[in-house]
């Protein structure tokens, strides 16, 4: 009898310890980023591009990377959205869940979801060369769009599948076409989920380095053209970290802080918007 009690106690202890370790690690990571990044964070960092001698410790900031990341992730998410919505609506409104097309598409999405981002980077690089593109914002957008498409599709699909079929039936029994049901009813019911999916994809796209390292290049300039290379925050962190000059390394920490804050903000925004759009959702 006592043996069991001890066993129970020991394992409860281990369990709580594990949970604490996991959360403490999260805390430590954020704390480190803040602690190291905050001192080096200045208005200059956010509002200027690297000036001459930036990489030697002189003036400038990472505005090029901030805007580059935003444009790249934004463009990629938009592209992915334009593709995801039709796919998910088709799968949930027009085709039968057990049809071969349905199953194959969902399987393809599952596979694409799991592909490591470096493989997308390598594929994007190949595509880039085949299309005659140089390392550019456009190449980066295309590659990241590929990366986030399955993430967006899966998130949207999951929400739509949970929508009660009776809702669509109510629409059909009023004489609506499938398109009308998809656009007016299903999309409205799933709006919070759709918004969350887009922001989830955006967050993933903005933080990924492996997909852009081969395709978007890097530059000190602001992203003004689709055909020129674009800087991204993850790469800015990576490059600045690799120098022996301490001031530049500190800027890497600051850039990492900026990136982390951006992502946390997007996460927060996603929750707020989802709640806002739940107004009309039928349980």
């Amino acid at each position, binding site marked *: 009898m006592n043996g069991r009690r001890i066993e129970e106690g020991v394992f409860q202890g281990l369990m709580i310890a594990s949970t604490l370790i996991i959360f403490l690690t999260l805390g430590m990571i954020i704390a480190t980023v803040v602690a190291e990044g905050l001192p080096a964070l200045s208005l200059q960092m956010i509002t200027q591009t690297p000036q001459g001698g930036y990489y030697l410790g002189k003036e400038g900031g990472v505005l090029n990377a901030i805007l580059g990341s935003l444009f790249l992730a934004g463009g990629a998410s938009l592209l992915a959205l334009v593709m995801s919505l039709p796919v998910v609506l088709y799968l949930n409104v027009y085709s*039968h869940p*057990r049809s071969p097309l349905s199953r194959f598409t969902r399987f393809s999405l599952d596979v694409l979801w799991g592909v490591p981002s470096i493989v997308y980077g390598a594929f994007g690089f190949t595509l880039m060369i085949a299309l005659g593109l140089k390392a550019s914002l456009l190449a980066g957008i295309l590659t990241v769009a590929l990366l986030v498409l399955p993430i967006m599709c899966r998130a949207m699909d999951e929400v739509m599948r949970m929508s*009660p079929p*009776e*809702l669509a*039936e*109510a*629409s*059909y*029994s*009023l*004489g*609506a*076409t499938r398109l*009308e049901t998809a656009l*007016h*009813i299903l999309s*409205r*019911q799933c709006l919070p989920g759709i918004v969350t999916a887009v922001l989830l994809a955006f967050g993933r796209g903005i933080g990924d380095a492996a997909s852009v390292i081969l395709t978007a290049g890097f530059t000190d300039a602001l992203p003004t053209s689709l055909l020129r290379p674009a800087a991204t925050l993850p790469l800015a962190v990576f490059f600045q970290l690799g120098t022996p000059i301490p001031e530049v390394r500190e800027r890497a920490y600051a850039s990492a802080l900026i990136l982390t804050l951006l992502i946390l903000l997007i996460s927060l925004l996603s929750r707020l918007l989802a709640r806002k759009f739940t*107004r*009309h*959702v*039928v*349980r």
Partner: protein
Amino acid sequence: MDFKTHISVRDLSVSYGTAVALKNITVEIPEKKITAIIGPSGCGKSTLLKSFNRMIDLAEGARVSGAIVVDGENIFDPGVEVTAIRKKMGLLSQRPFVLPMSIYDNVAYGPRIHGTGSRKVLDPLVERYLREADLWEEVKDRLSQPASRLSVGQQQRLCLARGLAVEPEIILGDEPTSALDPKSSRKIEQRFLELKDDYTIVIVTHILRQAKRLADYVVFLYLGELIEAGPAQEIFRNPQKEMTREYIGGTIS
């Protein structure tokens, strides 16, 4: 009983895969009267109702043979526009399912998709149908609020208003009050009695007393077959078939 037929069911058979739900149903549904389809659970009542507005098309593996003629055309004809058929039939389901929009938009949804767009036309339309469903007084100050905030009884009346707004000729009710409390049930039943002057109403119900209260005409199904059909008076007082007698008497249910 003298009546004009509105829906003529001719030799209708429906099966889901290998399971037969309806076998050779032939029956006439009278115009501008309340017809109650009764029978024990699983006898095919809902399937018959779903065939009327071709919602049966959405069921996986459903196969239909035979014809249903409404206003001179067979609704299963390949050339027929399904959306037009459904517009003719308003459906009230067992569990009210409001659309994810405001109360106003719920009622306006039908007219909007069928072409009516302007607020000038929609405003009086929404009010009219909410009145017909006996819901106007309760919601007139909060038309822009989400419909999901209404009580179940109110939601069912909203679904009635929504269904009426597409100006159907026929109202179909699939156990329309079984999810409601007695007070709301009575309200819905009241509406049906008043609406039958303008619409043909077909309701499926397993509550015999409800059928007795409402029906002018009764159709009795058992295990997918039509056992008996006729004016309510005759069926309830003097049923011809043994099985009908047993069901009405309560021996089988």
